[in-house]
């Protein structure tokens, strides 16, 4: 750590300074996203079951374009978020976890974000959630998850019907449930530990590198359908938005995205079952002369929430299967097979007490065809497979309003442990250099502040 910690401290102080400035904006009681809370006048527990998981009302707030009001604050809907963290891995990473960091036991300023969250033109149903993030390990300031939407509610044959349009930058960032990739667990994780190298394209591969236009409709708060199309941004635009353009891919044409969900609710129970997916023709590395890699993701998901007053439980599962037709990679010699499969499974369950103490257990699995061309650089046996468990304990003291001296604050203290039973293909010596899956087991502590 050494000098690293000094620099870390200086940056933390600078960010705290930014925080103090933003306090002048934030004079009303508020919680996660504080600007949403100022707008609605509600505490964060109204929308969140431990942020950022949404309650049924939180989903309707988003569905209706982030425009619901009631609060007295006429201040601009800006909010801040800071995540400071500590990462310990079972074995260090020689040469440093990242540039500027030691091999192990690193403190970092994981995220400093500024949000625009709330109405733009509330009377016209126009609202936004736009995040700009500074990530210290990557030393980058970039646009993060963003969703600007217009929504309109009407009654058709006696049933409430809400229509909406969203312009956004990440497939599934528009979604209302915490099962789809953009908003599923883990909600916070280390940038300084090794994580499995492979994921399906809908799981954030192109987050913030695409612009999408989606249209959605919700019928009777029971059926939700959405279709959208995404296109990659140019390298210049990537750069202007703080996304490192090197090695990015481009889509040929529009990549369609779809989502269908059914949400029955009874008493304190809310259940969702649905499907989602995406289909993209990709020029890997923006190289066009070898044709495209065509990848199709098909996802299935379900969520259950039981939200009583003192005890609460929620569970989410999703399964994504990806078919890869690797024409371009195959022609370029970077894949061995013409066709591959990749599957991802995620399940998590949370229990919370008084919306203050949270315990979470999660299981994740990536499994797919072996392919030396694709995986030999990360896996000694040319396999994408990984398997891991996560346990997490969180303490959120201010879900019902911050401390008297600072009521607009919310904070989450989290402690997470990730236990890999398989990593990039194997349990032992997965990289051919003697590293075992368990060497990447991670103990991760964080403080997540929003104000």
């Amino acid at each position, binding site marked *: 750590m050494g000098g690293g910690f000094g620099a870390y401290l200086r940056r933390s102080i600078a960010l705290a300074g930014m925080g103090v400035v933003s306090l002048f904006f934030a004079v009303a009681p508020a919680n996660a996203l504080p600007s949403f809370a100022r707008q609605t*006048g509600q505490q964060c527990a109204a929308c969140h079951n431990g942020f950022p998981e949404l309650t049924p009302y939180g989903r309707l707030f988003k569905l209706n374009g982030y425009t619901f009001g009631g609060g007295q604050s006429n201040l601009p809907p800006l909010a801040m978020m800071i995540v400071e963290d500590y990462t310990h891995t079972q074995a260090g990473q020689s040469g440093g976890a990242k540039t500027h960091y030691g091999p192990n036991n690193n403190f970092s300023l994981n995220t400093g974000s500024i949000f625009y969250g709330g109405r733009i033109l509330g009377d016209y149903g126009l609202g936004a959630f736009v995040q700009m993030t500074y990530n210290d390990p990557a030393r980058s300031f970039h646009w993060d998850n963003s969703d600007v939407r217009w929504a309109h509610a009407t009654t058709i044959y006696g049933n409430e019907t809400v229509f909406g349009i969203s312009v956004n930058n990440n497939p599934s960032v528009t979604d209302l449930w915490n099962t789809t990739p953009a908003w599923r667990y883990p909600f916070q994780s280390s940038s300084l530990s090794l994580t499995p190298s492979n994921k399906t394209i809908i799981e954030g591969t192109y987050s913030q590198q695409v612009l999408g236009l989606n249209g959605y409709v919700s019928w009777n708060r029971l059926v939700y359908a959405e279709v959208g199309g995404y296109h990659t941004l140019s390298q210049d635009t990537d750069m*202007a938005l703080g996304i*490192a353009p090197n090695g990015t891919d481009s889509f040929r044409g529009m990549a369609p995205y779809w989502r269908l969900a059914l949400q029955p*609710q009874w008493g304190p129970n809310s259940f969702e079952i649905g499907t989602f997916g995406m289909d993209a023709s990709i020029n890997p590395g923006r190289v066009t002369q070898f044709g495209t890699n065509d990848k199709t993701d098909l996802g299935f998901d379900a969520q259950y929430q039981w939200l009583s*007053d003192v005890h609460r439980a929620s569970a989410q599962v999703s399964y994504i299967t990806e078919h890869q037709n690797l024409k371009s990679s195959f022609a370029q010699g970077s894949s061995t097979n013409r066709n591959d499969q990749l599957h991802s499974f995620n399940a998590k369950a949370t229990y919370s007490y008084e919306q203050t103490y949270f315990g979470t257990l999660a299981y994740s699995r990536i499994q797919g065809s072996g392919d030396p061309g694709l995986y030999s650089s990360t896996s000694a046996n040319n396999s994408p497979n990984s398997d891991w468990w996560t346990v997490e304990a969180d303490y959120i003291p201010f879900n019902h309003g911050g401390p008297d001296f600072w009521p607009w604050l919310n904070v989450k203290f989290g402690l997470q442990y990730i236990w890999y039973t398989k990593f990039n293909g194997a349990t032992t010596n997965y990289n051919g250099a003697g590293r075992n899956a368990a060497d990447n087991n991670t103990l991760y502590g964080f403080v997540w502040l929003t104000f």
Partner: protein
Amino acid sequence: MTLQTDRTDATRANFRWAIAIPLALVLAACNAGQPTSEQSAANEQSVVQGTVHVCTSCHGFHGRSVSPRFPNLAGQQKDYIAAQLKAFRDHTRADPHAHTYMWGMAATLTDPTIDGLADYFSSQKPAPGTTGDPTLIAEGGKIFKDGIPDRKVPACQSCHGKNGEGASIIPRLAGQHPGYIADQLDNFISKARANEIMHENSKNLTPEEIQQIATYVGSL
């Protein structure tokens, strides 16, 4: 190394965007202006309609709610709804859920809008009673009709009506979620919800009796 240089350039360029995007949004938001306070009657109607849409996000379509956290409003007494909304607005109703959910909702409601909302919800068809454990219902019914004289618990029906229908500023209890009723009785007892009359009425009730009464009125 080359990658690093790219990043530095990008950081400088994107800083301008980073400032420009939120600024543009803020300006748009400020330009949108505040809702004007003088609204014509026709306008008021559409404000009420739009607000009802927000209210029903928690209180359910037509004020018949799904979750016991959110009280049914359908068929509730008009004067009671208006009085409670004003109590949320001026924070005199200050139990924990009032604070979490309703203070914000009521903060900017004007008197005419409150009147319109109360009118709307009071004229909706009430939620039907829910079934429950028959012995709880029988015990609860006794307290509701006769009170518990030796512990100075009055007959609830003397104010809330024979069928729990309420009157004016006395709320309808019939068909209300038992969980919500029990919470409110606890709130009256602890004075989290300040109301002298209901504190006196409920302070000698045991948790079992509260369960019985809540199940009974919920079944009406």
